[in-house]
């Protein structure tokens, strides 16, 4: 119902009663009634304290001192921790590559990104904890920062970590087949350069941790909305310097979305655990949205150059990848996994036998990266599928023809790619045809033709990708050289776990360690069980909370790489099948039939040949509890079965660096038509068609839900979302008014087409489906825009101003008499220039004397409380600055230089406070006026960073100008300002006029 295209067609689905049906989810009634149990909904132990975190306003700086005295003395405060306190209790988090580099959850003596924790306050409530944050006084010495990945690896760039020479953490070359030969012999070499931006899936629930240290046991008990992988548990316990059995990690029943992101809570698990140990009480921390956007985690940004050797028919003979992966300020576990997750399928959906790869992992002064839905896919496919479009344009083929010519042929599955992936199943050729016909490609082409005939800007884009799922825990070791791998020992596989239990009244419970974050795992597991035991899903209880002290789990546990349907649900089936086999034997002895004849349906265990010969399921199921002696010999029991399942296909990388990085590979074929508004540059999606082959569909409604959700995020990445940084490392997207998540008015409803080729490698034939559109949609939309504009250089996100810049010609010149501010800088750059002038009554000498007088400075510096004269030309001041209701206290330094009395002086200043920091320099010139008085002219450059930059971006420039204007106008006023002020900045001019003109 409502999902016509999603009708299940595989054998498994048809044979079964529940699997394949879009049944209502067992999760929903509670969630719809306000009875969810998210981490912040759960009660805490009496006496629990609350943490708040002070974060760095600088992208890169040395910490000179941290004064926590006042904070410690503040009401309600139990403890204040700084780096050294954390270091005393913990060890560095492990770093993903071998290098003399440490990674702490809090800055030690140097901050490396805006938002890096600097201090933690633990207090009786969150409000009081934040009050105390305001009282911590940190002095920084800023260092030059490096933001752009390619700039980071140019010689002489500032170093983020001394242990990563040239900011490079890893540099590996790979070669598969004979790429040199292929490139040498190919008719064409076609290349593309990509800068994939930073973004994140930003779950609506933020991070949360509740930690407690039991001093008698020497053990931590931690509840966190962590999502896995539980390999991170080993990282956490190592950092807490305890064996894993003393670090009990639990997850709450519900989690408000993750999309990979909540993997990144783990440094805070360590941090809050340390705080709890110091405080001697349980400590709770709920991240706020500003913290989340600025400092939780981000997908990697990546600079890629991808070249293809192409023959005259458009067939790709070889690829040459050069990827520079920007992991931000720390290489946090499991990075550099984003780069290697796709390694085996770097050839995409195509049959390409030769490939060369250079992978560099680098660090910059940005938030450390981590899991994000699509994990490496968006970055790889943006390059690969843009390249496919460019090949079509350059060789004058239809882009779909180029895709068709290159996809892995039908009947070739399982297909081993050059870099080692074993594409399990599929029929890409058929899927392309199905997608084109069911989605109405011809009609879309007709719409394009019609639109273009009317002079409208319209384009069509395509993307054909494979969606990997169920990660091989060994893929990351591809980053190591063969020798390093041999030394480290093999890593491979992906243990999935499931426990099926039957209680004394025959009720079935299941536990899985899949940590769902909204994907309805409990429903699907209930469906799987219902089919096997012949009960209804509503009778099955599924628990998905993880408790590492009691539950079956392994490093692969968790909710990532779309592993649930393919691996976890299948493992549930294996466990239930084992119990079912035993139940059949037990029932057979009671029903006097052969075990083979026993079956389950309608709550009964019965003979297949004679359905009336039956027993209630519950009775048979309970026998192991009540009457073990009556069970047939050697049947064991049916009380509980725990299964660990790992697919044999997930082998470690071989000696030639070939790696089957995932177990399953779904196929996606997307296309869309877009129209671009000539005036606004807005990109409107006319139609978006997405075709999926994710193997057997277990729950059509949920599969479509995953597709729509992923599509929405891919759409956002294409058009709206970016973690923007200024060149100085200021973070510019600190609120949901700056980091733009698409709403219901933006996201269109995609047309979904399904095809089902079951995976031969998974117990249920299912593959992952959750991440595909995050990989395919950004590039599909970009290709459509490229087609619409005939433009090769497409950068995400496609913000209207950026798109319009591609269509607008030269700008009409400014009319005579109107000058514009010099603007050599890029959008988002925080460098701000301004100038202005004022006529004042005082003579140049009088104005000059004022400038050098602390009392005058105190009067003219906006909001100045005190001025301390350090030298004749150096002053220190305490000021309150602000506009409207926004006010903050700052420590300011003012220096005078290039003195040319009484004509000109350079005034440089800096201010530093809780709301941010700024620095500026201005040249003031004083020219005597005829008939007395002075014309005071000024010109300045300023730069602002910190909190105001990340949350006030839209208003910041204007606000800064107002404040600087306040200074000069106050100066002018003091000097007897009067006549018309004359400046180029009209806002400032108006302001000055209002101030003087209005007053006189």
């Amino acid at each position: 119902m409502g999902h016509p295209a999603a009708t299940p067609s595989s054998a498994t689905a048809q044979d079964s009663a529940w699997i394949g049906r879009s049944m209502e989810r067992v999760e929903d009634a509670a969630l719809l009634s306000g009875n969810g149990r998210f981490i912040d909904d759960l009660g805490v132990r009496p006496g629990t304290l609350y943490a708040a975190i002070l974060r760095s306003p600088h992208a890169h700086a040395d910490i000179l001192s941290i004064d926590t005295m006042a904070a410690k003395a503040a009401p309600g405060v139990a403890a204040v921790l700084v780096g050294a306190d954390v270091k005393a209790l913990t060890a560095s988090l492990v770093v993903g590559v071998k290098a003399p580099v440490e990674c702490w959850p809090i800055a030690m003596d140097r901050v490396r990104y805006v938002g890096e924790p600097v201090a933690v306050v633990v207090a009786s409530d969150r409000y009081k904890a934040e009050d105390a944050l305001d009282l911590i006084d940190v002095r920084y010495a800023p260092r030059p920062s490096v933001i752009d990945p390619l700039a980071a690896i140019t010689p002489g760039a500032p170093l983020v970590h001394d242990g990563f020479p040239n900011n490079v953490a890893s540099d590996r070359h790979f070669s598969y087949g004979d790429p040199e030969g292929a490139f040498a012999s190919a008719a064409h070499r076609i290349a593309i350069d990509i800068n994939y931006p930073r973004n994140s899936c930003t779950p609506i629930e933020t991070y949360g941790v509740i930690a407690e240290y039991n001093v008698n046991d020497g053990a931590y008990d931690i509840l966190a909305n962590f999502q896995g992988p539980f390999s991170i548990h080993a990282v956490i316990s190592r950092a807490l310097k305890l064996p894993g059995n003393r670090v009990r990690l639990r997850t709450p029943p519900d989690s408000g979305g993750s999309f990979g992101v909540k993997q990144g809570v783990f440094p805070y698990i360590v941090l809050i655990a340390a705080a709890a140990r110091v405080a001697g009480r349980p400590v709770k921390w709920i991240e706020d949205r500003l913290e989340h956007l600025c400092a939780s985690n981000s997908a990697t940004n990546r600079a890629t150059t991808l070249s293809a050797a192409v023959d005259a028919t458009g067939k790709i003979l070889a690829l040459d990848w050069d990827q520079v992966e920007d992991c931000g300020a720390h290489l946090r576990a499991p990075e550099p996994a984003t780069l290697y997750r796709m390694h085996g399928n770097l050839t995409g959906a195509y049959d390409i036998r030769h490939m060369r790869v250079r992978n560099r992992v680098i660090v910059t002064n940005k938030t450390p990266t981590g899991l994000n839905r699509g994990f490496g896919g968006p970055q790889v496919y943006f390059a690969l599928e843009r390249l496919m479009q460019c090949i079509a344009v350059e060789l004058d083929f239809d882009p779909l023809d180029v895709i068709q010519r290159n996809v892995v042929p039908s009947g070739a599955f399982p297909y081993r790619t050059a870099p080692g992936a074993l594409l399990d199943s599929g029929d890409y050729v058929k899927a392309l045809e199905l997608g084109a016909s069911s989605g109405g490609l011809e009609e879309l082409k007709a719409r394009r033709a019609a639109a273009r005939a009317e002079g409208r800007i319209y384009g069509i884009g395509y993307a054909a990708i494979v969606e990997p799922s169920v990660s091989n825990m060994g893929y990351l070791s591809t980053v190591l050289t063969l020798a390093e791998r041999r030394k480290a020992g093999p890593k491979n596989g992906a243990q999935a776990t499931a426990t099926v239990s039957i209680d004394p009244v025959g009720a079935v419970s299941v536990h899985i360690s899949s940590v769902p974050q909204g994907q309805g795992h409990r429903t699907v597991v209930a469906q799987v069980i219902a089919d096997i035991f012949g009960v209804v899903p509503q009778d099955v209880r599924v628990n998905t909370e993880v408790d590492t002290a009691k539950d079956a789990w392994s490093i692969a546990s968790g909710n990532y790489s779309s592993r649930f349907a393919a691996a976890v649900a299948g493992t549930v089936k294996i466990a239930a099948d084992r119990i079912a086999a035993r139940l059949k034997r037990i029932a057979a002895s009671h029903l006097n039939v052969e075990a083979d004849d026993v079956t389950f349906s309608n709550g009964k265990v019965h003979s297949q040949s004679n359905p009336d010969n039956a027993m209630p399921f519950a009775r048979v199921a309970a026998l192991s509890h009540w009457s073990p002696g009556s069970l047939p010999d050697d049947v064991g029991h049916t009380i509980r079965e725990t299964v660990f399942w790992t697919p044999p296909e997930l082998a470690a990388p071989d000696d030639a660096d070939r790696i089957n990085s995932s177990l399953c590979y779904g196929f996606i074929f997307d296309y869309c038509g877009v129209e671009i508004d000539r005036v606004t540059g807005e990109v409107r999606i006319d139609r978006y068609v997405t075709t999926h082959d994710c193997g057997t569909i277990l729950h059509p409604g949920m599969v479509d839900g995953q597709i729509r959700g992923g599509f929405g995020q891919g759409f956002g990445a294409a058009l709206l979302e970016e973690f923007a940084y200024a060149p100085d490392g200021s973070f510019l997207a600190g609120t949901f008014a700056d980091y733009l998540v698409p709403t219901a008015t933006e996201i269109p409803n995609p047309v979904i087409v399904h095809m089902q080729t079951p995976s031969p490698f998974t117990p249920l034939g299912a593959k992952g489906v959750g991440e595909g559109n995050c990989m395919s949609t950004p590039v599909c939309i970009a290709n459509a825009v490229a087609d619409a504009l005939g433009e090769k250089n497409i950068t995400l996100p496609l913000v209207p101003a950026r798109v319009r810049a591609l269509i607008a010609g030269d700008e009409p010149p400014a009319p005579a008499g109107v000058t514009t501010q010099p603007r050599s800088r890029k959008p988002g750059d925080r460098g701000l220039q301004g100038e202005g002038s004022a006529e004042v009554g005082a003579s140049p000498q009088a104005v000059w004397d004022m400038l050098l007088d602390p009392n005058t400075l105190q009067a003219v510096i906006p909001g100045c409380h005190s001025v301390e004269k350090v030298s004749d030309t150096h002053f220190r001041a305490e000021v309150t600055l602000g506009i409207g209701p926004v006010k903050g206290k700052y420590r300011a330094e003012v220096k005078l230089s290039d003195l040319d009395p009484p004509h000109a002086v350079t005034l440089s200043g800096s201010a530093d406070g809780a709301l941010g920091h700024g620095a500026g320099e201005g040249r003031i010139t004083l020219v005597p006026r005829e008939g007395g008085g002075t014309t005071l002219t000024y010109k300045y450059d300023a730069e602002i960073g910190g909190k105001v930059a990340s949350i006030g971006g839209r208003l910041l420039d204007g606000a800064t100008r107002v404040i600087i204007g306040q200074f000069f106008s106050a100066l002018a006023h003091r000097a007897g300002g009067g006549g018309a002020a004359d400046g180029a900045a009209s806002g400032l001019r108006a302001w000055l006029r209002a101030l003087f003109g209005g007053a006189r």
Partner: protein
Amino acid sequence: MPRLTATQRHSVRFRLNGHPVEGSAEPRMQLADFLRHELGATGTHVGCEHGVCGACTVLVDGMLTRSCLTLAVQVDGCDVRTVEGLAPERGRLSVLQAAFRRHHGLQCGFCTPGVLMSLDRYLSTNPNPTEDQLRELLSGHLCRCTGYTPIIRAAMEAAATLASSTRQEDSTHV
């Protein structure tokens, strides 16, 4: 005109989903925090604390209200409604809630309480909404899981169901 001092907790009373409730709050306490942590009504969620995500949306005297942009002391004496009050009785779902379940209008369910409050309020005064109107209404909510289409479908179906049931009621009254 009492002046509630900053450092003290003050008694706050209002009706929550039709029942009188009372708790104490400093003037600065957000209504969202008061509902959740003072009154234990944790159905209302907090996702941004700056008015954009909509997860905290409740009704105050019939007005859609961001409970993160409202102080607890501001609603003293008001009528407050939250997701916990939507169902006709405990253990049942309203027409709108049931439509959400049927159409998979939620995944993680974190945005859902706010979305439900907006839709419930809107449908009560706009029984025949168009899809565009609903999309515009929902522009005040961020959902990261669903891509919104299932939410729209659920709301359209609920509107139709509610409209037909009122029509029936009307005709029985005639």
